[in-house]
């Protein structure tokens, strides 16, 4: 049993096709997996990994910095204004971003933007390595 998956960002459609499972991490909710027949659902995403299991069993991984997941009918839609497929992650720029965020946190350890940037950089480095 499969359903339709669409993964869109403002600049492009990152993924569109049939799949059997999507896993995501919602804000305040933790990890959640969607299979066919899931109840209608709308969630706000954390900076985290999205896994899409395609109909043939291959798994595609994406890093998202926030966004939304919506399940309705037999369709899962992932929306994120900042998302990259794991294989397209630029480790060098992620490392640069991490260094930059860490240095900003060293001057102001409550800087929310720097914390979010640090988390996003760490996620990309982790995904690219695995």
């Amino acid at each position, binding site marked *: 049993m499969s359903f339709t998956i669409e993964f869109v960002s*403002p*600049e492009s459609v990152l993924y569109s096709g049939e799949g059997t499972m999507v896993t995501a991490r919602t804000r305040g909710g933790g990890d959640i997996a969607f299979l066919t027949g899931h109840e209608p*659902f*709308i969630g706000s995403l954390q900076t985290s990994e999205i896994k899409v299991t395609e109909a043939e069993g291959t798994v595609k991984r994406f890093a998202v910095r926030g966004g*939304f997941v*919506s399940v309705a009918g037999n369709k899962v839609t992932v929306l994120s204004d900042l998302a990259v497929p794991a294989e397209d992650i630029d480790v060098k720029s992620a490392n640069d971003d991490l260094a930059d965020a860490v240095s900003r946190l060293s001057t102001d350890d409550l800087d929310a933007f720097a914390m979010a940037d640090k988390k996003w950089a760490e996620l990309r480095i982790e995904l690219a390595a695995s």
Partner: protein
Amino acid sequence: MPGGAERVLRRRIGSVKNTKKITRAMELIAATRVTRARQRANAARPYAEQLTSVIENLAAGGADIDHPLLRQVENPHTVAFVVCAGDRGLAGPYNSAVIRSAEREIQAHRADGGDYKIISVGRKVKDYFTFRGFEIERSFTGFTDNPTYEDARRVARVVRDLFDNGRVDQVELIYTEFVSLGTQRPVVRRFLPLESTETISEAGGGEASALAGFSFEPSPEGVLEDLLPQYVEARLFAALLEAAASEHANRQRAMKAATENAEELITKLARDMNRARQASITTEIMEIVSGAEALEEDAA
């Protein structure tokens, strides 16, 4: 001075030909950029539509909360005008049309006793209003011909901060709408506060899934709180992309007209040059003939 006029004309024809080459090249570049800008606008559409459909579902789920971005102010005193035009000229009436309608809005608002703040996108906007003695709150330059989502986010953040802090009561967005390749027109759109979630969903026209019974994580209000800022950014991004496509379309038309003018000028100058050359040849023949006749008279 025989041949003098001809030489001057020849030089002018050469320089007009060079100008024509440049305007022709700019026309072709603008044409490809229009296509690319429109493709990007199309690529951005699914995201905006999906965001709208999530808002629809939220509204259907009964989440109409008192979010700061939805807060309406009666008789807004301070209004921010986000004016989007280009960094460069050579685009026909593109910049001046947007700027003129912006100035009209601002003056009308001032006439009503209101205060204004200008957020300029594009160097032309900043130059114009600075020169006219208007105060500019923030200016952005360098991305108008090819805006990225990150650019839209930066502008949106400034606008939202102004609105959130209560420094402005309302935000108007002024940009050029891309109707078709032949028609672009400046429009003034209310940007903030947003319409209520119901109005957004009515205007959205997306697939209004009448499936009630959604569950939300963390909560309908929590999702809406994350969603509305995204919606603001997506709308601004769409406006910037339309403005970019309009700018290139206008430039393409302006450069096409310039190329045609250059062609006309070349034809006219070539005619003048030929006439001048013919005149000098005629003069020379007359001189030879009259010289020969004088010799014949001497011999006789």
